[in-house]
């Protein structure tokens, strides 16, 4: 150290020698971010926002199918179990079916006969499990569900025939008569309106007829539902398992189209977000052409320069992607809550995709200005031309 060095410079040197030793490379990376706080923060912000939007969209895209499938289950059964050739199902059919679909859907048994009213009119009477029907057929508009034995749920059209004044009425089937009290009406706009529903225990006690149909609403992808169908067929060899084709086909179509629209939207949004990052970052790197020129004038090799800017871009990309991921998961969860009233579960499978994508975009944003600067002499840049 020569004696001609001025006081402040000596202070700086003294300070530096006391500071923990970090490599020049790391120091340059950190100081670049700290010294131009504003610009670095803007670049990072752009990256975070882009990563957040991309994460939210990808999360939604993956999850929306499951959410919409749940909505489609409100259409009721997508599988129907019937006895072969019109025969009744075995008495334990429901419990066996229930074991197969446990946790993957709901089911309800139905038994049907044609009975006569007291004045000899034919009417279809059905026996079912009201608690299960309530879960399965949510579109039924029911004024009051029966709870006690000998209570009947009467279709709006059948009510006119059997009990216009809501008085108890008689039904007879093969010589057996039962008196039931209408406690509520059901309206669906289809066959149910002309029927009378009794609880299954009353129905079996009265007619001796076992359920002929079990309706199953199974949730899952088409493959999972096909598997459930196979398992049901195996568990109940005496029954025939039929898909309700219009529900299955309609569901597949609507889901497919919605997902395709969402995919197109996701692609557009990610493209715009990437462009936003690209223009911000390119501005930032281009702005530092002086640093670039000084490094080069001091004898930095092309490889070192490339490495420096690449490391900087990668660090920015990774940091932005991680913060953005957390934010994006939050956004997706919020959309899920607002629109589907159920949270969208975070998909960590999306994380590597977002991180890799962010790093590619940041590297691209660094490479373009650097390669255009490399052709220019450092002297020209330093003169500010």
């Amino acid at each position, binding site marked *: 150290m020569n004696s001609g060095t001025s006081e402040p410079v000596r202070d700086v040197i003294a300070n530096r020698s006391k500071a923990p030793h970090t490599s020049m490379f790391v120091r340059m990376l950190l100081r670049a971010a700290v010294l131009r706080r504003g610009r670095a923060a*803007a670049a990072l912000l*752009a990256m975070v*926002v*882009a990563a957040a*939007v991309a994460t*939210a*969209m990808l999360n939604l895209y993956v999850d*929306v199918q499951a959410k*919409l499938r749940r*909505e*489609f289950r*409100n*259409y*009721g059964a997508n599988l129907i179990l019937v006895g072969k050739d019109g025969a009744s199902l075995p008495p334990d059919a429901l419990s066996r079916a229930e074991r197969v679909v446990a946790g993957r859907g709901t089911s309800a048994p139905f038994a*049907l006969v*044609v009975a006569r009213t007291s004045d000899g*009119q*034919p*009417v*279809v009477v059905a026996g079912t499990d009201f608690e299960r029907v309530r879960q399965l057929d949510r*579109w039924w508009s029911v004024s009051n569900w029966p709870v006690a034995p000998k209570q009947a749920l009467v279709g709006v*059209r*059948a009510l006119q*025939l059997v009990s216009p004044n809501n008085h108890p009425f008689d039904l007879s089937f093969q010589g057996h008569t039962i008196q039931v009290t209408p406690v509520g009406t059901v*309206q*669906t*706009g*289809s*066959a149910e309106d*002309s029927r009378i529903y009794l609880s299954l225990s009353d129905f079996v006690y009265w007619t001796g007829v076992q359920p002929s149909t079990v309706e199953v609403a199974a949730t899952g992808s088409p493959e999972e539902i096909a598997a459930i169908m196979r398992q049901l067929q195996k568990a109940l060899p005496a029954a025939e398992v*039929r898909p*309700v*084709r*219009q*529900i299955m*086909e*309609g569901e597949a*179509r*609507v889901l497919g*189209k919605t997902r*395709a*629209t*969402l995919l*197109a*939207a996701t692609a*557009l*949004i990610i*493209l*715009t*977000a990437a*462009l*936003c990052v690209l*223009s*911000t970052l390119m*501005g930032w790197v281009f702005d530092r052409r002086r640093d670039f020129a000084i490094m080069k004038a001091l004898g930095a090799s092309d490889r070192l320069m490339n490495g420096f800017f690449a490391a900087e871009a990668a660090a920015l990309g990774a940091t932005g992607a991680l913060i953005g991921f957390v934010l994006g998961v939050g*956004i997706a969860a919020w959309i899920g809550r*607002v*629109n*589907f009233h159920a949270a969208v579960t975070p998909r960590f499978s999306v994380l590597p995709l977002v991180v890799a994508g962010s790093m590619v975009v940041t590297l691209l944003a660094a490479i373009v200005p650097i390669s255009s600067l490399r052709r220019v002499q450092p002297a020209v840049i330093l003169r*500010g031309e």
Partner: protein
Amino acid sequence: MFVRLVYESFRRQKRRKLLAGAAITLGVTVATAMIAVATDIGDKINRELRTIGANLVVTPQEDTLDVEIGGVNLKPPSDGAFLNEADLPKIKGTFWHNNITGFAPMLPVSVTLQRGGKVENLTLLGTYFAKQISFGKEEFKTGVRTTHPWWKVSGSWPDDSSRDVLVGERLAARLSAKVDDSLVLSGRQLRVGGILSTGGDEDNEIVAPLALAQEILGKPQAVRRVYVSALTKPEDAFARRDPKSMSGAVYDRWYCSPYPQSIAFQLREAIPHSHAEQIRQVAQNEGAILTRIEGLIFLVTLAALFASALAVSAAMATAIFERRAEVGLMKALGAGRVAVASVFFAEATLLALMGGVLGFATGGMLARQIGRSIFNSQITIAPVVLPVILAIAVIVTFTGSAAAIRKAVELDPVFALRGEL
């Protein structure tokens, strides 16, 4: 001088202007396409939901109870009331006729099948397959091929004026009937045009043109019920109100909204002695699904608008930041803050307008492409939206540049000119 400044800036800095313009164009393209998709998605999904089947049913007013189990009708066939086939084209004369995608009349009759000396009772369902109907000047095709798209036929669909029938697949397997066989039904020799598979009760039935079923029943023009497929709006509390209790203006609003209830009401008006009702399984659920999908796409559109606003702002900020030296020079030559800012704002407006028009055009094409590849139908964007899009583009470009312009204006020209920042 002002005009020349702006003009020269565009002429000399083509690269920078192109970059900023490209960002605005892309942003507006994405925004336009997403707005077009979002406004049309309800209609498109509604049409897809029609594959689940008709959502309205019209029955005779004095109809007796259906006594039907598993597609087998236990009611005497001549029993009950019928609708008149001649009234059906009036469905297309209702207020919401453009929302009615199709209808199919149904007439189940009992027939006897003679086969190898044995006689068997079967149900024959008369309906339209794809019948040409005209109402006024309007010509349209309707029938089960539109209202029941999940019905599949191996062989060929019979013509509505022919005497060919379709045999349900389970019945066909039992009878070992094949395409081109002939069946003797209630004394008539009929050709099997195809084997029908529906997954429902029709698999055990014979399906024939409506005229043939009427002839067998001996009641020309008779129809038991009509299934109507209509594009409807999700039901809300207003939809459920009783039209009789409404006052004039409220009633008009209810009548002119495509709720399932109001369309059913109009069907009742159009067809004499009829009762029209929504099929709740279909009508109720599609409202829920439609609301969910529309909500989702709406939120996604917001995200798209946000992302494109951000992209435009970022591009503008970068473009202005690169021109600090220019600002310094202008200020050194005596330009005030207002003069400098107005030059930049004029440039931003010009860029926004040009990018906006270009983006609107490409966005419209993009939306059309999305419509064609996903929904096989057109998504068009109304030209009315153009001024709105342009206004948004200008506002976003302004707000995006505002911070950068303020910074540039407040700069000390000395530093800017020395390039020390």
